[in-house]
């Protein structure tokens, strides 16, 4: 346990001056900012406050100027944007050791390689949680400043449940991205992997079979595909995610422990 804490301390230190951290926070905060703009535009005139594709989208998703819609939008942003941003975080944390050519310094030490990777996973989870909590806080601040209607404790609890379950699903789904970074020896391979996943998630989701494609499930669960798609989710949809996450985690550890580090 002591070694694990020391590995985590080292990981925190490595990221001390990382500008990537701020980039992810700024990119992720676009969701509550745009959500707040929607709220502001719709506040007095409903759908008439919007124009063009925004209006069509809002109508399609039954988006309204109230807390329920606003918080649901934040969950959907995690379900879709999280694949990209959390994937970016995982790519950076696991791929940087190869891009910075520091991986070899971590491989012949009295500490096990899995503890070093576990420290990265802990840091990754903490980073993702910090991102979603910051977005939630931003959303709440914007919502109260705009005096959005429909505030109720039960609305908050219901949406928080969806928000954090969506977060956990995405966090779980990015262990294969960590594997792609370790096996691909850098952050380019996992970023490519994330881009492919994002496209596939959209296509497969639109085809109506996203309930069995792991990277489509969080978005559908968050309501991004509407209620029709959401009711198609079943236990298997979530079991597939858990299995994907476990395979990604174990694959990452085994690869780093047993593959040649040329």
């Amino acid at each position, binding site marked *: 346990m002591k070694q694990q804490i020391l590995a985590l*301390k*080292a990981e925190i230190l490595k990221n001390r001056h990382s500008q990537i951290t701020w980039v992810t926070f700024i990119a992720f905060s676009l969701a509550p900012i745009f959500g707040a703009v929607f709220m502001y535009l719709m506040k007095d005139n409903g759908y008439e406050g919007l124009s063009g594709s925004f209006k069509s989208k809002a109508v399609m998703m039954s988006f309204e100027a109230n807390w329920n819609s606003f918080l649901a939008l934040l969950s959907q942003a995690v379900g879709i944007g999280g694949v990209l941003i959390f994937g970016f975080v995982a790519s950076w944390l696991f791929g940087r050791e190869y891009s*910075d050519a520091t991986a*070899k310094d*971590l491989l*012949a*030490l*009295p*500490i096990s390689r899995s503890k070093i990777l576990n420290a990265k996973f802990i840091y990754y989870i903490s980073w993702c949680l910090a991102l979603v909590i910051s977005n939630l806080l931003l959303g709440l601040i914007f919502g109260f400043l705009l005096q959005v209607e429909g505030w109720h404790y039960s609305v908050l609890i219901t949406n928080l449940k969806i928000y954090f379950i969506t977060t956990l699903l995405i966090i779980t789904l990015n262990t294969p991205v960590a594997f792609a970074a370790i096996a691909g020896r850098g952050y380019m391979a996992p970023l490519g992997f994330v881009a492919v996943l994002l496209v596939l998630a959209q296509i497969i989701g639109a085809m109506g079979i996203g309930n069995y494609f792991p990277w489509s499930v969080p978005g559908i669960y968050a309501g991004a595909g509407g209620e029709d798609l959401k009711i198609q989710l079943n236990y298997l949809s979530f079991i597939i995610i858990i299995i994907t996450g476990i395979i990604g985690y174990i694959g990452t550890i085994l690869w780093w422990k047993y593959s*040649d580090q040329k």
Partner: protein
Amino acid sequence: MNIIKTENLTKIFGDTIAVDTVSMHVKQGEIYGFLGLNGAGKTTTIRLLLGLIRPDFGSCYLFGQKPKQASGIWNEVGYLVETPHSYPNLTVTENLKVIYNLRGLKEKSIIKDVISILRLTQYKNKKEKHLSLGNKQRLGLAKALIHKPKLLILDEPVNGLDPEGIAEIREFLKDLTQNHGTTIFLSSHILSEISKLTTRIGIIHGGKLIKEIDSYELEEQIIKKLLVNTVDNNKAINILNENNLAVSINGDSILEIAEQNAIAHPEKIAAILVNNNIPPKMLRVFEEDLESYFLRIIGVNNIEQ
């Protein structure tokens, strides 16, 4: 006691035998120089020793143990593989703190100490990305030395250092061996450095260890000869032969005398020639340098004669 021992160590990448049945041993307190051209198998051997890659055949031992992950032997081993890299956005001190934590070290003062030893004090708060190549090398060495290892495995340790820095590191490594009993295994392409520093040399070529030699033996095996050029070399050969000196003539029409006495006393040769009215235009003791020796051993035919 053998600190490093390999037995038929072999690594194959696809169709290439990168390391081919290498058997060697390095004793405590030795500075073992590992020589080879680029692609000869030096770095692959070092990676095998560090457990970064697995051998296809054979085995290697550090302190009598196979190099297993998370083993206690890594507390005794410091290493530097290829070009040293550190986290570019971290300062010198922060980079060392990362290693300090991962190694589970306890005395914080050792960070300051190793910074001072490697003369990085004025750069301690500078980010790695702003360091010169030489100082990056020093930081790499600092990371390898921070835990005061009993065995140092260094791949091209003086790369990028200026002559003053090279001399400094050489003396530092000698001090480690002589006063702290540290064993050093190092590869370098700066062959003159190897000859100044090492106690034993291994030459690897095409993945095979083709020669192991003690540094004092090397001195004996290096070709030495006296090169002479005169206004009339044919007459000079006759005169020198009359004085019981075997003389040959090389491709550049320069006379070569290999006898130890002549090499030790070239002034006597000069006197003989002058007394016979054929004063030398050139008289030079040629001593094969390590590079020429190395190329001769591996069979590359471009040795200065």
